Protein backbone atom coordinates (compact mmCIF):
# COMPACT_ATOMS: atom_id res chain seq x y z
CA UNK A 1 0.00 0.00 0.00
CA UNK A 2 1.25 3.47 -0.84
CA UNK A 3 0.53 6.52 1.23
CA UNK A 4 0.06 8.60 -1.88
CA UNK A 5 -0.26 7.19 -5.36
CA UNK A 6 1.90 8.80 -8.01
CA UNK A 7 5.31 10.40 -7.81
CA UNK A 8 4.29 14.06 -8.09
CA UNK A 9 4.30 16.74 -5.44
CA UNK A 10 6.91 18.04 -3.02
CA UNK A 11 8.75 15.31 -1.28
CA UNK A 12 7.74 12.70 -3.82
CA UNK A 13 9.80 9.60 -3.41
CA UNK A 14 10.37 10.26 0.29
CA UNK A 15 9.35 7.72 2.85
CA UNK A 16 6.21 7.87 4.95
CA UNK A 17 7.95 10.05 7.52
CA UNK A 18 8.85 12.85 5.11
CA UNK A 19 6.18 15.13 6.54
CA UNK A 20 6.18 13.89 10.11
CA UNK A 21 7.89 16.92 11.61
CA UNK A 22 5.81 19.53 9.79
CA UNK A 23 2.60 17.71 10.70
CA UNK A 24 3.78 17.48 14.29
CA UNK A 25 4.55 21.18 14.43
CA UNK A 26 1.01 22.09 13.39
CA UNK A 27 -0.43 19.47 15.73
CA UNK A 28 1.47 20.99 18.66
CA UNK A 29 -0.14 24.36 17.98
CA UNK A 30 -3.63 22.92 17.60
CA UNK A 31 -3.61 20.70 20.67
CA UNK A 32 -2.98 21.34 24.33
CA UNK A 33 -0.20 18.90 25.03
CA UNK A 34 2.59 17.02 23.34
CA UNK A 35 0.74 13.79 24.01
CA UNK A 36 -2.42 14.99 22.23
CA UNK A 37 -0.27 16.24 19.35
CA UNK A 38 1.36 12.86 18.94
CA UNK A 39 -1.99 11.10 18.99
CA UNK A 40 -3.27 13.53 16.34
CA UNK A 41 -0.31 12.91 14.05
CA UNK A 42 -0.65 9.17 14.48
CA UNK A 43 -4.36 9.36 13.67
CA UNK A 44 -3.50 11.45 10.60
CA UNK A 45 -1.19 8.76 9.26
CA UNK A 46 -3.74 6.06 10.05
CA UNK A 47 -6.40 7.92 8.08
CA UNK A 48 -4.00 8.58 5.22
CA UNK A 49 -3.16 4.90 5.04
CA UNK A 50 -6.86 4.07 4.97
CA UNK A 51 -7.13 6.40 2.01
CA UNK A 52 -9.49 8.89 3.62
CA UNK A 53 -10.02 12.28 1.97
CA UNK A 54 -8.98 10.69 -1.31
CA UNK A 55 -5.73 11.95 -2.73
CA UNK A 56 -5.83 13.41 -6.22
CA UNK A 57 -2.79 12.26 -8.20
CA UNK A 58 -0.62 15.21 -9.09
CA UNK A 59 -1.81 17.37 -6.21
CA UNK A 60 0.27 18.37 -3.22
CA UNK A 61 0.56 15.45 -0.81
CA UNK A 62 1.62 17.76 1.99
CA UNK A 63 -1.62 19.76 1.66
CA UNK A 64 -3.53 16.48 1.58
CA UNK A 65 -1.93 15.33 4.83
CA UNK A 66 -2.56 18.72 6.45
CA UNK A 67 -6.22 18.45 5.45
CA UNK A 68 -6.48 15.03 7.04
CA UNK A 69 -4.80 16.31 10.18
CA UNK A 70 -7.15 19.27 10.42
CA UNK A 71 -10.22 17.06 9.88
CA UNK A 72 -8.96 14.56 12.47
CA UNK A 73 -8.46 17.39 14.93
CA UNK A 74 -11.94 18.82 14.34
CA UNK A 75 -13.44 15.32 14.69
CA UNK A 76 -11.61 14.81 17.98
CA UNK A 77 -12.80 18.15 19.29
CA UNK A 78 -16.39 17.41 18.38
CA UNK A 79 -16.17 13.90 19.81
CA UNK A 80 -14.68 14.90 23.10
CA UNK A 81 -16.65 18.17 23.29
CA UNK A 82 -14.12 19.30 25.83
CA UNK A 83 -13.59 22.57 24.10
CA UNK A 84 -16.03 23.81 21.49
CA UNK A 85 -14.94 25.02 18.09
CA UNK A 86 -14.35 28.72 18.31
CA UNK A 87 -16.77 30.65 16.11
CA UNK A 88 -16.60 33.57 18.52
CA UNK A 89 -12.87 33.85 18.13
CA UNK A 90 -13.17 33.79 14.36
CA UNK A 91 -15.87 36.46 14.45
CA UNK A 92 -13.78 38.58 16.74
CA UNK A 93 -10.92 38.32 14.32
CA UNK A 94 -13.05 38.95 11.27
CA UNK A 95 -14.54 42.07 12.85
CA UNK A 96 -11.21 43.62 13.49
CA UNK A 97 -10.23 46.48 11.19
CA UNK A 98 -8.06 45.33 8.36
CA UNK A 99 -4.60 46.25 9.51
CA UNK A 100 -3.30 46.44 5.98
CA UNK A 101 -5.57 49.36 5.36
CA UNK A 102 -5.49 50.90 8.79
CA UNK A 103 -3.12 53.83 8.79
CA UNK A 104 -2.98 53.94 12.56
CA UNK A 105 -1.83 50.38 13.04
CA UNK A 106 1.80 50.71 12.15
CA UNK A 107 3.65 51.75 15.25
CA UNK A 108 6.90 52.55 13.60
CA UNK A 109 10.20 51.91 15.23
CA UNK A 110 8.87 50.66 18.57
CA UNK A 111 6.85 47.87 16.97
CA UNK A 112 9.66 46.94 14.64
CA UNK A 113 12.20 46.80 17.43
CA UNK A 114 9.84 44.72 19.58
CA UNK A 115 9.16 42.29 16.73
CA UNK A 116 12.86 41.83 16.21
CA UNK A 117 13.36 40.91 19.85
CA UNK A 118 10.47 38.55 20.50
CA UNK A 119 11.34 35.08 21.69
CA UNK A 120 9.81 31.74 20.84
CA UNK A 121 7.61 31.53 23.90
CA UNK A 122 6.00 34.88 23.14
CA UNK A 123 5.32 33.91 19.53
CA UNK A 124 3.80 30.61 20.57
CA UNK A 125 1.58 32.33 23.14
CA UNK A 126 0.45 34.91 20.58
CA UNK A 127 -0.36 32.16 18.08
CA UNK A 128 -2.36 30.24 20.66
CA UNK A 129 -4.38 33.40 21.23
CA UNK A 130 -5.66 33.25 17.66
CA UNK A 131 -8.66 31.21 16.59
CA UNK A 132 -7.79 27.71 15.39
CA UNK A 133 -8.55 28.61 11.79
CA UNK A 134 -6.34 31.71 11.96
CA UNK A 135 -3.57 29.75 13.67
CA UNK A 136 -3.75 27.04 11.02
CA UNK A 137 -3.64 29.52 8.14
CA UNK A 138 -0.61 31.29 9.62
CA UNK A 139 1.26 28.03 10.22
CA UNK A 140 0.50 26.63 6.77
CA UNK A 141 1.80 29.86 5.28
CA UNK A 142 4.95 29.56 7.39
CA UNK A 143 5.38 26.01 6.12
CA UNK A 144 5.40 27.37 2.58
CA UNK A 145 1.94 26.44 1.31
CA UNK A 146 0.41 28.83 -1.19
CA UNK A 147 -3.05 30.31 -0.91
CA UNK A 148 -4.58 27.68 -3.20
CA UNK A 149 -3.05 24.85 -1.16
CA UNK A 150 -4.14 26.40 2.12
CA UNK A 151 -7.61 26.83 0.68
CA UNK A 152 -7.62 23.12 -0.14
CA UNK A 153 -6.69 22.29 3.46
CA UNK A 154 -9.22 24.66 4.97
CA UNK A 155 -12.02 23.93 2.52
CA UNK A 156 -12.60 27.58 1.63
CA UNK A 157 -11.92 29.87 -1.35
CA UNK A 158 -8.37 31.25 -1.82
CA UNK A 159 -9.71 34.78 -1.34
CA UNK A 160 -10.88 33.84 2.14
CA UNK A 161 -7.41 32.49 2.92
CA UNK A 162 -5.85 35.78 1.84
CA UNK A 163 -8.07 37.89 4.07
CA UNK A 164 -7.80 35.49 7.03
CA UNK A 165 -4.03 35.42 6.76
CA UNK A 166 -3.81 39.19 6.51
CA UNK A 167 -5.99 39.72 9.58
CA UNK A 168 -4.28 36.98 11.58
CA UNK A 169 -0.84 38.45 10.91
CA UNK A 170 -2.10 41.91 11.87
CA UNK A 171 -3.38 40.54 15.18
CA UNK A 172 -0.10 38.70 15.76
CA UNK A 173 1.91 41.85 15.16
CA UNK A 174 -0.31 43.81 17.47
CA UNK A 175 -0.03 41.24 20.27
CA UNK A 176 3.70 40.73 19.90
CA UNK A 177 4.31 44.46 19.88
CA UNK A 178 2.20 44.80 23.04
CA UNK A 179 3.78 41.84 24.83
CA UNK A 180 5.41 42.83 28.08
CA UNK A 181 6.91 40.01 30.11
Amino acid sequence: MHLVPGPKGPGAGDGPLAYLDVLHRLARLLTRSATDAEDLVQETYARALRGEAGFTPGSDRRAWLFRILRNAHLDARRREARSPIEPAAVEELSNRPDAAAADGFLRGDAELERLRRVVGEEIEAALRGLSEDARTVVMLDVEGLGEAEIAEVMGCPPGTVKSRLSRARAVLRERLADYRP
Partner: protein
Amino acid sequence: MDCTTVRESLHDLRRGRLDAVRAAEVRVHLKGCLGCRREEEAEAALDHALAERLPRHAASAALRRRVEELWAASAGAGPSPRPRSRPRLSRIVAPAAVAALAIVSVGLLAERQLRVREERLERLADEVVTDHLRLLASAHPYDIESGITHEVKPWFEGRLDFAPEVPGDRGELRLLGGAVGYVLDRKAAVMSYALRRHRVTLLAFPAAGLAWPQANRFAGGAPAAADERRGFRVVLWRAGDLAYALVSDVNAEDMELLAGEIVPETRR
Protein backbone atom coordinates in the same frame (compact mmCIF):
# COMPACT_ATOMS: atom_id res chain seq x y z
CA MET B 1 0.05 52.36 -7.15
CA ASP B 2 -1.39 53.58 -3.82
CA CYS B 3 -0.34 52.59 -0.32
CA THR B 4 -3.32 50.30 0.30
CA THR B 5 -2.63 48.30 -2.86
CA VAL B 6 1.07 48.09 -2.05
CA ARG B 7 0.47 46.88 1.51
CA GLU B 8 -1.95 44.24 0.25
CA SER B 9 0.77 43.05 -2.12
CA LEU B 10 3.66 42.90 0.37
CA HIS B 11 3.03 39.32 1.48
CA ASP B 12 2.87 38.08 -2.11
CA LEU B 13 6.02 40.04 -2.91
CA ARG B 14 7.96 38.32 -0.12
CA ARG B 15 6.59 34.92 -1.18
CA GLY B 16 7.62 35.57 -4.79
CA ARG B 17 4.05 35.37 -6.06
CA LEU B 18 3.88 38.69 -7.91
CA ASP B 19 4.62 38.87 -11.60
CA ALA B 20 7.71 40.85 -12.58
CA VAL B 21 5.85 44.02 -13.60
CA ARG B 22 3.79 44.24 -10.43
CA ALA B 23 6.77 43.36 -8.23
CA ALA B 24 8.74 46.19 -9.83
CA GLU B 25 5.85 48.62 -9.23
CA VAL B 26 5.69 47.67 -5.57
CA ARG B 27 9.45 48.06 -5.17
CA VAL B 28 9.40 51.49 -6.79
CA HIS B 29 6.64 52.55 -4.41
CA LEU B 30 8.57 51.20 -1.42
CA LYS B 31 11.61 53.26 -2.34
CA GLY B 32 9.62 56.46 -2.16
CA CYS B 33 7.22 55.71 0.72
CA LEU B 34 8.59 55.52 4.26
CA GLY B 35 5.28 54.30 5.72
CA CYS B 36 5.02 51.34 3.37
CA ARG B 37 8.70 50.58 3.82
CA ARG B 38 8.21 50.37 7.57
CA GLU B 39 5.20 48.17 7.03
CA GLU B 40 7.31 45.87 4.87
CA GLU B 41 10.05 45.77 7.53
CA ALA B 42 7.53 44.88 10.24
CA GLU B 43 6.00 42.14 8.10
CA ALA B 44 9.47 40.79 7.33
CA ALA B 45 10.31 40.84 11.06
CA LEU B 46 7.15 38.84 11.76
CA ASP B 47 8.12 36.36 9.04
CA HIS B 48 11.55 36.01 10.59
CA ALA B 49 10.11 35.51 14.07
CA LEU B 50 7.69 32.82 12.86
CA ALA B 51 10.25 31.04 10.74
CA GLU B 52 13.30 31.25 12.98
CA ARG B 53 12.22 31.75 16.57
CA LEU B 54 9.00 29.82 16.94
CA PRO B 55 9.96 26.54 18.63
CA ARG B 56 10.01 23.89 15.93
CA HIS B 57 8.81 20.88 17.84
CA ALA B 58 10.24 17.90 16.02
CA ALA B 59 8.41 14.60 16.31
CA SER B 60 9.79 12.45 19.10
CA ALA B 61 11.59 9.20 18.44
CA ALA B 62 8.66 7.34 20.02
CA LEU B 63 6.15 8.89 17.60
CA ARG B 64 8.46 8.22 14.68
CA ARG B 65 8.64 4.60 15.75
CA ARG B 66 4.86 4.29 16.10
CA VAL B 67 4.24 5.77 12.63
CA GLU B 68 6.86 3.46 11.15
CA GLU B 69 5.08 0.52 12.76
CA LEU B 70 1.78 1.75 11.37
CA TRP B 71 3.36 1.99 7.95
CA ALA B 72 4.91 -1.43 8.20
CA ALA B 73 1.58 -2.93 9.29
CA SER B 74 -0.10 -1.50 6.20
CA ALA B 75 2.60 -2.72 3.83
CA GLY B 76 1.10 -6.20 3.74
CA ALA B 77 -2.24 -4.78 2.51
CA GLY B 78 -3.96 -6.36 5.46
CA PRO B 79 -6.86 -4.90 7.37
CA SER B 80 -7.08 -1.13 7.57
CA PRO B 81 -4.63 0.03 10.21
CA ARG B 82 -5.86 1.76 13.32
CA PRO B 83 -3.78 3.72 15.82
CA ARG B 84 -2.72 1.47 18.62
CA SER B 85 -2.38 4.04 21.34
CA ARG B 86 -4.89 4.88 24.05
CA PRO B 87 -7.74 2.40 23.50
CA ARG B 88 -11.07 3.66 24.82
CA LEU B 89 -12.46 1.89 27.86
CA SER B 90 -15.97 1.83 26.42
CA ARG B 91 -14.82 -0.37 23.56
CA ILE B 92 -13.49 -3.00 25.93
CA VAL B 93 -16.41 -4.76 27.54
CA ALA B 94 -15.63 -8.47 27.69
CA PRO B 95 -15.37 -9.51 31.35
CA ALA B 96 -12.63 -11.95 30.50
CA ALA B 97 -10.55 -9.02 29.34
CA VAL B 98 -10.66 -7.17 32.66
CA ALA B 99 -7.55 -8.79 34.08
CA ALA B 100 -5.67 -8.27 30.87
CA LEU B 101 -6.88 -4.67 30.78
CA ALA B 102 -5.40 -4.02 34.21
CA ILE B 103 -2.02 -5.19 33.00
CA VAL B 104 -2.28 -3.18 29.78
CA SER B 105 -3.35 -0.08 31.73
CA VAL B 106 -0.22 -0.21 33.84
CA GLY B 107 1.81 -0.37 30.64
CA LEU B 108 -0.07 2.52 29.07
CA LEU B 109 0.28 4.59 32.23
CA ALA B 110 4.01 3.97 32.26
CA GLU B 111 4.23 4.89 28.59
CA ARG B 112 2.24 8.07 29.17
CA GLN B 113 4.43 9.07 32.13
CA LEU B 114 7.47 8.53 29.95
CA ARG B 115 5.97 10.75 27.26
CA VAL B 116 5.15 13.45 29.82
CA ARG B 117 8.77 13.39 31.00
CA GLU B 118 9.98 13.56 27.39
CA GLU B 119 7.61 16.48 26.85
CA ARG B 120 9.04 18.41 29.82
CA LEU B 121 12.58 17.91 28.59
CA GLU B 122 11.67 18.87 25.01
CA ARG B 123 9.89 22.00 26.17
CA LEU B 124 12.73 23.25 28.34
CA ALA B 125 15.42 22.25 25.86
CA ASP B 126 13.57 24.01 23.03
CA GLU B 127 13.24 27.13 25.13
CA VAL B 128 16.90 27.37 26.11
CA VAL B 129 18.07 26.61 22.56
CA THR B 130 15.85 29.46 21.34
CA ASP B 131 17.46 31.75 23.93
CA HIS B 132 20.90 30.64 22.78
CA LEU B 133 19.98 31.30 19.14
CA ARG B 134 18.67 34.74 20.03
CA LEU B 135 22.02 35.58 21.61
CA LEU B 136 23.88 34.30 18.57
CA ALA B 137 21.75 36.47 16.30
CA SER B 138 21.88 39.55 18.48
CA ALA B 139 24.11 42.47 17.58
CA HIS B 140 24.40 43.25 21.33
CA PRO B 141 24.38 39.91 23.16
CA TYR B 142 25.69 41.21 26.48
CA ASP B 143 24.43 43.88 28.83
CA ILE B 144 27.78 43.65 30.58
CA GLU B 145 30.79 42.67 28.51
CA SER B 146 33.46 41.30 30.80
CA GLY B 147 35.52 38.15 31.26
CA ILE B 148 35.82 38.70 35.01
CA THR B 149 33.45 36.76 37.25
CA HIS B 150 33.64 39.40 39.99
CA GLU B 151 32.36 42.01 37.56
CA VAL B 152 29.61 39.94 35.96
CA LYS B 153 28.17 38.40 39.13
CA PRO B 154 27.66 41.71 40.99
CA TRP B 155 26.13 43.22 37.86
CA PHE B 156 23.12 40.92 38.29
CA GLU B 157 22.42 42.37 41.76
CA GLY B 158 19.33 44.53 41.64
CA ARG B 159 18.42 43.19 38.22
CA LEU B 160 17.37 39.74 39.40
CA ASP B 161 15.76 38.52 42.61
CA PHE B 162 18.26 35.69 42.86
CA ALA B 163 22.05 35.44 42.80
CA PRO B 164 23.34 33.04 40.15
CA GLU B 165 26.77 31.49 40.26
CA VAL B 166 28.93 32.81 37.42
CA PRO B 167 31.65 30.30 36.58
CA GLY B 168 34.79 31.99 35.30
CA ASP B 169 37.40 31.01 32.73
CA ARG B 170 38.66 27.45 32.84
CA GLY B 171 40.80 25.72 30.27
CA GLU B 172 39.80 26.97 26.84
CA LEU B 173 36.47 28.30 28.09
CA ARG B 174 36.31 32.10 28.18
CA LEU B 175 33.63 34.17 29.92
CA LEU B 176 32.43 36.90 27.52
CA GLY B 177 29.71 38.66 29.46
CA GLY B 178 26.22 38.56 30.92
CA ALA B 179 22.70 39.78 30.34
CA VAL B 180 19.20 39.42 31.73
CA GLY B 181 16.88 37.29 29.64
CA TYR B 182 13.83 35.10 30.01
CA VAL B 183 13.25 31.38 30.23
CA LEU B 184 9.58 30.53 29.81
CA ASP B 185 7.76 32.86 32.21
CA ARG B 186 10.67 34.00 34.41
CA LYS B 187 13.74 36.16 34.36
CA ALA B 188 17.05 34.45 33.81
CA ALA B 189 20.70 35.29 34.19
CA VAL B 190 22.34 34.77 30.81
CA MET B 191 26.07 34.11 30.75
CA SER B 192 27.95 33.89 27.47
CA TYR B 193 31.17 32.00 26.92
CA ALA B 194 33.44 31.05 24.04
CA LEU B 195 35.07 27.66 23.68
CA ARG B 196 37.49 27.99 20.81
CA ARG B 197 35.17 29.17 18.00
CA HIS B 198 32.01 27.82 19.62
CA ARG B 199 29.60 29.92 21.64
CA VAL B 200 28.33 28.52 24.93
CA THR B 201 25.37 29.90 26.88
CA LEU B 202 24.70 29.27 30.55
CA LEU B 203 21.25 30.23 31.84
CA ALA B 204 20.27 30.41 35.50
CA PHE B 205 16.66 30.87 36.59
CA PRO B 206 14.35 30.06 39.52
CA ALA B 207 13.23 26.44 39.46
CA ALA B 208 10.05 26.90 41.53
CA GLY B 209 6.92 25.84 39.70
CA LEU B 210 8.73 24.42 36.69
CA ALA B 211 7.75 21.00 35.36
CA TRP B 212 11.27 19.68 35.70
CA PRO B 213 12.37 16.81 33.45
CA GLN B 214 13.63 13.61 34.96
CA ALA B 215 17.42 13.25 35.05
CA ASN B 216 18.80 10.94 32.41
CA ARG B 217 22.49 11.20 33.34
CA PHE B 218 24.99 12.61 35.78
CA ALA B 219 27.01 15.73 35.01
CA GLY B 220 29.73 16.90 37.36
CA GLY B 221 28.43 14.46 39.95
CA ALA B 222 24.86 15.82 39.85
CA PRO B 223 21.73 14.38 38.26
CA ALA B 224 21.06 16.17 34.99
CA ALA B 225 18.78 16.00 31.97
CA ALA B 226 20.48 16.13 28.59
CA ASP B 227 18.96 16.49 25.17
CA GLU B 228 19.82 17.49 21.61
CA ARG B 229 17.61 20.01 19.85
CA ARG B 230 18.12 21.42 16.38
CA GLY B 231 21.80 20.49 16.40
CA PHE B 232 22.51 21.98 19.83
CA ARG B 233 23.33 20.06 22.96
CA VAL B 234 21.54 20.97 26.16
CA VAL B 235 22.28 19.99 29.75
CA LEU B 236 19.83 20.95 32.51
CA TRP B 237 20.40 20.62 36.24
CA ARG B 238 19.26 22.09 39.52
CA ALA B 239 21.28 23.65 42.28
CA GLY B 240 19.23 24.49 45.36
CA ASP B 241 16.22 26.48 44.23
CA LEU B 242 17.85 27.55 40.97
CA ALA B 243 17.85 25.75 37.64
CA TYR B 244 20.74 25.95 35.20
CA ALA B 245 20.87 25.21 31.48
CA LEU B 246 24.00 24.86 29.39
CA VAL B 247 23.62 25.14 25.60
CA SER B 248 26.15 24.87 22.80
CA ASP B 249 26.85 23.30 19.44
CA VAL B 250 30.07 21.67 20.67
CA ASN B 251 30.46 17.92 20.21
CA ALA B 252 29.23 15.42 22.77
CA GLU B 253 32.65 14.91 24.33
CA ASP B 254 33.28 18.64 24.80
CA MET B 255 29.78 19.11 26.19
CA GLU B 256 30.37 16.42 28.76
CA LEU B 257 33.68 18.02 29.76
CA LEU B 258 32.04 21.45 29.94
CA ALA B 259 29.19 20.21 32.10
CA GLY B 260 31.67 18.35 34.28
CA GLU B 261 33.48 21.63 34.95
CA ILE B 262 30.54 24.01 35.24
CA VAL B 263 27.95 21.99 37.16
CA PRO B 264 30.08 21.72 40.36
CA GLU B 265 30.74 25.48 40.19
CA THR B 266 27.01 26.14 40.47
CA ARG B 267 26.51 23.74 43.37
CA ARG B 268 29.10 25.03 45.77
